[in-house]
């Protein structure tokens, strides 16, 4: 596997690949339209594009804002709780040894499993969805927060001791920034988890937002609109991810982030 190969080649081949995929999509849609096969009603890319434009000029912004509001609130709640919990569990050894195993046991159980319980508790409204997103974000970020609160670079700690810093000063200048830095990294990883949870919550609740719109057009058998909405969802996720990477690089230029981390 030789290195090199200019970026131009990557762009050209990538474009060719995308084009090939679109062509395959179009061909498939024509092949299936004549009936036969399990999947009927696969609209061709142009129909989807038209539908996308229509949606963009219509309710897209409103739905998007609803969903983003859920996401933002949930993310803030989850990240804040995770930071506080991470500081507590990471710095206070007793708390950590006692409660971290419980967290580790619960973590693999995605917040999606909590959807029915959340409905029982909070109904179908905003609170329920925010709770689920917050939970999803919390479960991801807590690990980073605990890590960050524990991992103070040894030389910085020694410098702090030499300068005669007291507990509070150490906390403010060393521990808190370190924890927040890790929380930021974990937040990018939790982006997709949180955004995915938004859609599941909205699919089930089906009142407002992109997910609700998805259910609505599904129930009216509007396949192009369904695909268009899915694309909106993916696009938003991509933009958030990209935006977050930019933010991360601006705030912490010395870190090399792990692009493409698994959920």
């Amino acid at each position, binding site marked *: 596997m030789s290195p090199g190969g200019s970026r131009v080649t990557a762009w050209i*081949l990538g474009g060719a690949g995308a084009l090939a995929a679109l062509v395959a999509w179009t061909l498939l849609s024509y092949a299936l339209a004549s009936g036969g096969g399990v999947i009927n009603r696969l609209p061709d890319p142009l129909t989807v594009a038209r539908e996308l434009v229509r949606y963009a000029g219509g309710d897209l912004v409103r739905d998007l804002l609803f969903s983003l509001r859920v996401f933002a609130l949930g993310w803030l709640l989850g990240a804040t709780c995770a930071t506080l919990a991470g500081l507590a569990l990471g710095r206070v050894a007793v708390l950590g040894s006692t*409660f971290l195993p419980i967290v580790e046991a619960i973590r693999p159980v995605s917040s999606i499993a909590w*959807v*029915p319980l959340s409905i029982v508790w909070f109904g179908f409204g905003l609170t329920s969805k925010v709770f689920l997103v917050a939970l999803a974000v919390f479960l991801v970020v807590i690990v980073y927060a605990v890590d960050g609160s524990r991992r103070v670079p040894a030389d910085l700690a020694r410098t702090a001791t030499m300068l005669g810093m007291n507990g509070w000063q150490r906390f403010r200048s060393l521990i808190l920034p370190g924890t927040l830095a890790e929380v930021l990294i974990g937040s990018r990883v939790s982006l997709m988890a949180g955004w*995915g949870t938004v859609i599941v919550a909205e699919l089930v609740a089906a009142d407002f937002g992109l997910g609700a719109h998805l259910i609505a057009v599904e129930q009216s058998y509007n396949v192009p609109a369904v695909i268009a909405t899915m694309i909106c969802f993916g696009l938003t996720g991509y933009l958030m991810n990209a935006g977050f990477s930019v933010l991360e690089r601006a705030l912490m230029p010395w870190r090399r982030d792990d692009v493409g981390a698994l959920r």
Partner: protein
Amino acid sequence: MISARPIVRRALLPIVGIALAVAAWEATVLGYQLPAIVLPSPKAVVAALRELLVTRAFWRDVGVSLYEFVAGYLLGALGGIAVGVLMGEWRVFRMMATPVVESLRFIVPFAWIPLTILWFGTAFTGKILLVAYAVFFVMVVSTTRAIAQVEPTLSRVGTMLGMGRWRLAWQVHLRAAAPTIASAARAAAAIGWIAVVAAEYVGASAGLGLMITNAASSLATPVVIAGMIVIGAIGAGVSALIGWLSRARLDYR
């Protein structure tokens, strides 16, 4: 701080933690006089769980969900590894496929749920394909990366020994990348399993997710929580199984 020996810390304190959590749970229920609909006591949940375990319908639902998961997982994992190897070995293909893979990655499996319902109704096929899709993308990305990270000396050795390109890929690269691919397979299983459950929340004719949703509609909260515990247990079980399998076969590290 804690002068006790490590084993005390590692074994005793977590147990204390769990006991504290359960006690707090019980106390909250009693103290606030919470109705069982809102927060059932731990005892009620355990009772509901026991009840489930002897109900035939429950096991049928579990079987349905597991079947959908396993079928989709195998499909997605094998396909994902195959495409991942292709992308890892063949630079042209990788550059062509990357934009498509990367964009589809952002359309999370959950977003596909309504479409699969439109196309396949509530039948098994839809959920199987959904799981396959979710698992496929995780495995493609991680397999590609795992193959890229194979120690270059091994490739040179294989070429020197006379291995052609695809023999090298199969006998050397895949074997060398296997441990990394196996741990990705564990993560993929978690995602696939939750995809099944989520799909069943939205639209299903049978399955664990449907059972729990029904229980939620009739406000049978103990059953809901019992169901969540089952979801977690199966998820943990599958993950442990894959971990055990990969250690048994791949423990040459």
